[in-house]
């Protein structure tokens, strides 16, 4: 668990540090900096997609268990599943939007 937290914190620091590397001069970023921006963007999207997929899987598993235990509660649970999936998907979309804005 501590190792996972350490890896995630390191990745977070790297993601935060990448824009600082890109602020070299008033003009366009040098090619070497652009390379790091692209790499960071790829990692950010991969991380966001995987965490969102994990979140959706957890939501779906919880809903399946809840519905199987209490089918009468279907309307409320179904709405919660729908909202959960839509909002989790939107998080990946926000990551994509931020990446596009950074690569502009």
């Amino acid at each position, binding site marked *: 668990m501590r190792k996972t937290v350490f890896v995630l914190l390191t990745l977070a620091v790297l993601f935060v540090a990448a824009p600082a590397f890109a602020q070299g001069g008033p003009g366009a970023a040098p090619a070497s900096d652009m390379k790091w921006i692209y790499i960071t963007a790829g990692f950010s999207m991969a991380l966001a997609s995987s965490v969102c997929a994990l979140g959706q899987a957890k939501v779906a598993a919880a809903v399946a268990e809840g519905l199987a235990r209490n089918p009468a509660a279907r*309307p409320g*649970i*179904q*709405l919660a*599943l*729908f909202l959960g999936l839509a909002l989790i998907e*939107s998080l990946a979309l*926000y990551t994509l*939007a931020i990446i596009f804005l950074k690569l502009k």
Partner: protein
Amino acid sequence: MSETPPPSPPPAAEAFYSGAYRRMERFLLALGLAALPLLWWKAGARFALGYVAGGLVAFVNFHWLKRGVEALADRITRSGRPQPATGIVLRFLLRYFLVAAAAYAIFTISAASVYGLLAGLCLPVAGILCEAGYEVVISVRRGY
């Protein structure tokens, strides 16, 4: 000692909350249409066209997500007309393919309209937030 069952909500409250999907779709459409002229004026025609495409994809995506969730719930509770699991998964994947195809098509036409597409794809969240605010107001007013 037997547990007392939780009190069931009044029929008016049930009817109100069961209309949430329909209201969200209406909020989505209303917000999309309301923001379109403003975006066209402020950000240009390309951005607005990307926004329209993104809004359409988001609406279709929203509708298919709803159908997918219903099919999944049907399958779990064994009610309605159960659909094969492969079909449900394929429909979920098809939604992602639709969004990716629209983004790729628009990106090849104009890079500027990709931002409009992304703005349009965020419309369902705005619709959900509007519905949440509406439900809070109505539940406080009517005491649900």
